């Protein structure tokens, strides 16, 4: 068996100081070699692991024979954001986890092959999609993130007239404001969105639903509505010192860097505090993104402070490894108790307590318990809180009948239907903060449900 092709990376020392993409992508030769590892199982398990059900063995077989154009066409049958998914999907717990080869060792690098196909097409010029015969039905999609874009693409392909309403000035949702340039170049997001525009989708930015119009208004103006409003409200810990100058939510820090391009200040007008010693609280992908961004902004030391152990880190392994290679310090089994105040209400450090793992909690992970008397102080001038986000309640103003769960998430049935007729929802607004691909899967499901509804009403 041929070994899995390694992904070429920018050198760790160098990349820790720039915002260019870290993973460089396979060459044609590498892609063909990697594709040749696929056994083309008769009953391919990998497809079951894909939330958008890409014909994985199908497109890999086309790569094998060098038919890259056909391969991307196969992917695009079910996935309108291939270049994004090839970069940010957690394949190791989805398609690749179920690959037969994974049992014997290394699975086929499905994600990297998907990325290769999308990048190859982009270099050659994306094929303009053929528009479908109009159905005469109109659908409003709220939020231009992964869920909304996917739902919009599928609905447009079915012939419906789709309008997306986006509150920010740019499209892409978390792909644009959250995930950094070095992991997902914004030019790629823009091109994927352009493709969706070419399908006939009308994109309105600067348009805040809940303020300009309510959900109720949209239900009247359109035949159906999809809510892909995400989980944009940052959680804080509620500890002393959290409002000091120099404490950021990961959302704010990343939005400044990614959406507003603060790393290019003053050429771009939005400033950001460039810390010398930065502490990031949390252990997910967002925490890794924030820590690695802080390093690239010139910090001398960036630490991840996480209350559980290495095995419990919710971030993708690949991102944890990338972060370690770049020099991010991991202070595991450590929990902040309070943020210490320096001059002029700025941050001067964080008092932490050491933790040990006790019994498993309801999430199945062993819950951390503080070790008495282990308080210690870590110096810091910037603290970034990356402990998760909640759905944004603003959209709900003026939509009384919409059933919402205890954590502010929108309640849906197995077909993405909300409690309101002709309104579906999906993505982080329903699940709470999760992955790009699960939001896309939900967008697809909702598009199917809405299409059925429009065809039968």
């Amino acid at each position, binding site marked *: 068996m041929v070994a899995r092709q390694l992904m070429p990376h920018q050198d760790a020392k160098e990349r820790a100081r720039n915002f260019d993409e870290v993973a460089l992508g396979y060459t044609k030769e590498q892609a063909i070699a990697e594709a040749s590892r696929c056994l083309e199982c008769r009953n391919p398990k990998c497809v079951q692991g894909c939330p958008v059900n890409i014909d994985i063995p199908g497109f890999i077989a086309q790569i094998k024979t060098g038919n890259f154009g056909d391969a991307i066409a196969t992917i695009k049958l079910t996935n309108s954001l291939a270049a994004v998914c090839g970069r940010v999907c957690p394949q190791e717990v989805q398609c690749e986890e179920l690959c037969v080869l994974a049992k014997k060792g290394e699975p086929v690098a499905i994600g990297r092959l998907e990325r290769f196909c999308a990048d190859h097409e982009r270099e050659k010029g994306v094929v303009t999609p053929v528009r479908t015969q109009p159905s005469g039905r109109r659908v409003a999609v709220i939020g231009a993130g992964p869920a909304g874009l996917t739902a919009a693409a599928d609905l447009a392909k079915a012939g419906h007239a789709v309008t997306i309403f986006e509150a920010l*000035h740019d499209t892409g949702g978390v792909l644009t404001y959250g995930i950094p340039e070095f992991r997902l170049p914004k030019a790629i997001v823009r091109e994927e969105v352009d493709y969706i525009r070419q399908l006939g989708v009308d994109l309105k930015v*600067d348009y*805040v639903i809940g303020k300009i119009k309510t959900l109720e208004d949209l239900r009247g103006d359109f035949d159906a509505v999809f809510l892909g409003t995400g989980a*944009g409200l*940052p959680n*804080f810990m509620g500890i002393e010192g959290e409002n000091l*100058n120099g404490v950021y939510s990961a959302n704010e820090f990343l939005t400044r860097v990614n*959406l507003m391009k603060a790393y290019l200040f003053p050429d771009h007008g939005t*400033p950001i505090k460039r810390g010398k010693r930065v502490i990031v609280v949390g252990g997910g992908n967002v925490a890794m993104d924030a820590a690695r961004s802080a390093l690239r902004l010139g910090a001398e030391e960036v630490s991840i402070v996480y209350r559980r152990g290495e095995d419990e880190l919710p971030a993708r392994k690949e991102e944890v490894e990338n972060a370690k290679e770049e020099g991010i310090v991991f202070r595991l089994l450590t929990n902040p108790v309070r943020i210490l105040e320096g001059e002029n209400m700025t941050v001067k450090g964080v008092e932490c307590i050491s933790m040990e793992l006790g019994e498993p909690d309801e999430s199945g992970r062993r819950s951390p318990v503080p070790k008495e008397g282990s308080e210690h102080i870590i110096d810091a001038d910037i603290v970034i809180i990356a402990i998760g986000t909640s759905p944004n309640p*603003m959209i709900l103003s003026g939509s009384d009948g919409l059933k919402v769960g205890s954590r502010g998430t929108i309640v849906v049935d197995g077909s993405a239907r909300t409690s309101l007729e002709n309104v579906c929802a999906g993505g982080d607004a329903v699940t709470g903060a999760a992955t790009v691909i699960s939001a896309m899967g939900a967008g697809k499901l909702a598009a199917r449900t809405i299409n059925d509804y429009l065809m039968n009403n």
Partner: protein
Amino acid sequence: MSYTILEKKQIAPQVHLMKVLAPDVAKAAKAGQFIILRIDETSERIPLTIADFDAGEGYVTIIFQEMGKTTKQLAKMSDTDVLQDFVGPLGKPADVQKLGTVILVGGGVGIAPVYPQVKAYREAGNKVISIIGARNKDLLVLEDEMQDASDELYVATDDGSKGHHGFVTEVAKKILDSGEKIARIVVIGPPILMKVAAGMTAPYGVETIVSLNPIMIDGTGMCGGCRVSVGGETKFACVDGPEFDAHKVDFNLLMSRLGLYRSEEAQCQEDHNCTCRSGN
């Protein structure tokens, strides 16, 4: 998107009025709300409280003072120029009810956001006493409009060049001392003015509302940069406000957080000036 500037004029030294064509925003706008604008692709997003709006004509009026790089750039724009982004209306509308007699206080460019509230409170059936103030008479904006919209108007200037020689809060205090029953005081202006006003009214037990304008990016609750402490609780000014009970606001925190990027702003100004000079 792009939003055309219908009219732009200087109304006081370094203070400008701009009418921006934004029909969706104008149609939905209410007194007390704000917008966020971005001049072009590389600009920052800045929040500005709505000074007036006309749903029929489809425009929103903003009034701003030249402070940093962005507002200076904005000041150089003229009629028919376009803004890249103009988002709103954001924040909760002012809680305008029929209460009796209310005092509305505007300091400096804070007079601008007070103006639509004066109209709204008056329409709701209140007697509106307005007090406007500035450093000197040249910096007083919307005086005629405020005169027309209010039942009574008082003017104060720091240098005594017009009206009461001193602060707007002193005028408000006199009215409170006169024994007239005041149901509510709304104060909008620089944070230090709002802080002083809150301290002044507290012993009278008069409900006092302030409109906060902290640093923010998205204005929809996403970044949390605009967090303020109100009654010991953290609130996001963009979605929970911008209006809060003045007696509960931690103004020191607000003022400190407003100064967060002072050094970056200075660096930016320097670069800006350097570029200008090299162009000469």
